[in-house]
Every structure is written in C-alpha cells, then in structure tokens.
C-alpha cells in the first residue's frame, strides 16, 4: 500500500479497510486481519492499526469480539458509505470543484465522462 503525503496514516488505513468492504473482499460477519497481521502487511506500528480499528468500531463498521478479534459489522456497507460520503463531500469535492471551475468544465461533459467511466470500470463484459 502506498501512503499519500498529507493524510494521517491511521485514516489512510481506515480508507483501505473501507475499500475492502465496499468491494466485497471482506464481508459482513467475517473476521478481519488481526492488528498485528495488518501492521506487518502495511509496515506500520501496530498502535496505528489499533487506532484505525477503534475508529471503525466507533462508526459501527467493525465490531470487537473480545478475545477473538475484530469482525466486519452487520451494517458495515451502509455505515462505510455514510462515513466515506461525509469525507468525500468535505475533503475531495472542494478540490474537484476548484478544478472544474478553473478549467471551465461543464456538467454535461462531466456526466458523459462519468457514465463511460462507470461502464468501463464497474460492468463486467
């Protein structure tokens, strides 16, 4: 995993976990990698992964079964979407809008691009 420059590592790891959930790689009620396993895989301090897991537990995305480990919460997909949507609106959209404005890109052009992107990326032939 490549870490970007500006965002706290524990949040970048949260995004990584959320993406795994949205893509269906990790499913509801499944056990996620232990704090140590994920720390080793991502080459980060286990305390950082712990902070990520605690954050996701507070958002009802992970649940902690004491003594067994962390699991994907039942409503994880819904909660990930809520959590990521707020983040996207607050952080990514203003940057995107700024470029749209500066480069004078219209919504029609954008919509066409968006539709072909979805078609190419997410529909299986």
């Amino acid at each position: 995993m490549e870490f970007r420059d500006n965002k706290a590592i524990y949040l970048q790891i949260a995004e990584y976990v959320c993406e795994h959930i949205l893509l269906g790689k990790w499913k509801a009620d499944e056990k996620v990698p232990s704090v140590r396993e994920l720390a080793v895989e991502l080459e980060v301090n286990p305390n950082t992964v712990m902070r990520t897991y605690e954050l996701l537990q507070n958002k009802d995305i992970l649940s902690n079964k004491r003594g067994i480990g962390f699991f994907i919460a039942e409503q994880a997909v819904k909660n990930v979407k809520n959590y990521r949507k707020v983040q996207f609106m607050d952080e990514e959209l203003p940057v995107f809008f700024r470029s749209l404005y500066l480069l004078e890109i219209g919504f029609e052009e954008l919509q066409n691009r968006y539709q072909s992107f979805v078609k190419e990326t997410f529909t299986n032939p």
Partner: protein
Amino acid sequence: MIQIDNLNFGYKKDKLLFNNMSMKLSPGHIYGLLGKNGAGKSSLLKNMAGLVYAQSGSLSVMGFDPAKRQPGLLAQICFIPEELYLPSVKIDSYVKANAPFYKDFDHAYLSTLLAEFDIPANNKLVNMSYGQKKKFVIAFGLATQAKFIIMDEPTNGLDIPSKAQFRKIMASALTEERVIIISTHQVRDLDNLIDTIIILDDSKVALHASIDQITDKLCFKNIRNLDETVIYSEPSLSGYNALLPNYHQEDSRLDIELLFNAVITDKEKLKPIFN
C-alpha cells in the same frame, strides 16, 4: 519501565553531553530517537545499556541500574550498535556460544528471520557484507526475546528489499511488554513504525511526544502563501510545506523531517504548544 532522572553525562569532565536529562519510556511503544550528529543519541542508548556511565543522576531499566551490568538485566537487553564487531566464526558457532545467555532464546524464530533476511548460513560472520552482518545481528537480537530493544541506526547498510523486510519484522516484534527505541537519521525508512518521537538537542530533550499528541496539536500541510500563524515552513514545488497550530482539528500526516527542522531551528516556538 525505563526511568531517567537528572542524568548528567559527558566524555570529558568539563563538557557535559547531557545536562539534567530526564525521560520515561513505557512498554508497548516504538520510540524514535532523533538528533543532529553529535547530539548524543548513541551515548544515551549506551547509558541505557550500561555501556557507559553517567557522572550523576539516576537511571533505572526494568528496576535495574544498567551501570551494574547484572546478568538479570543484560539477558533482557538487545543492543544493536551502529558499528559491528563480529568474530571469525560461522552463524552456528556464534549462536551456540551466545544464545545460552538468554533463557527464552527462540531458535525457530531465528531461522525464520535469517531466511526472511536471506542470510547465507555457511559464510563466516566476518566475511559477510556490512548489510548482511547488520541483518544477522538484528535477527539474533530479536530471537533473544529481550524486553528492551535498542537499535542504533538499524537501517544503515540495508538494501531496498531488506528495509521493507525490516519494517515488517519490527511491526511484528512490538509487543505490550517490549520497549523498542531506535535512533535514526533515515526517518523515511521508519516513518510509520515509530509511535513516539524523542528529539535531543543542546544537551537536553527538546521534544518527547507521541505522534498522536503531535498531530493533535500541530498541523502539517502544503500551503500557497505564508502567514503569521505558520510556525515553520520550507519551500516546496507548489508553495510551502508548513507546520501550523492545529486550529481546525485536522488529522494531518506527521512530517518527521519538517518537525525535526522546526524543533532544531526554534525550540522556543514549539515549547508553549507542548507544555
């Protein structure tokens, strides 16, 4: 687990390297020890391991005074020095001669680490490259199961794959009972591994704070224009890499180099923020 109070230490009587230095290290953390050349990083680590002796002050490592060099403590310390002196023997004989000093020595773990680090088993230690020697010493040190791991510039001499391997091994080596302290100039090698930063400067601890505490109080970001709120900045391609007070509770990523330069340039500016 490690408590240092008012430590005074110097190699010459009239010139102190540490002046009334105090600090406390707790288990379950990886401390990054930073400082300019000659700031005393290695000397502090040697004090903790009982390899040099302080003029005054007290130093307690797991309840022991390291200067007394009692076996009970030495068996719990893994010290990886920057310069290595290894005997002219093969790995087998080295392990046979040295592992018995550590009652919990894990031979299976040593074999795993040697394989991960890709170290040839049949060469004599003296004939290995600096990087290979370093990897061997790290593997042996971790296999001792010591509770106190001291590493002086561990990534020096490691090739690119070994550095990634080292980070993985250290991430798995941190347990709730262990204290790991690593001195380094190669902050990018260890960036995400360290959870607490200690900066030595001017014979004192200039900063001792966890990454969470630092990013709670400070914000690291790229800005286009400087203003009076900026604590420290360096020019970058798209403006400035800046260190600001964290007014808006932003969760930014710690830039250790920027923080280090800020501390070294102007300690007084950061002091009120952390006190």
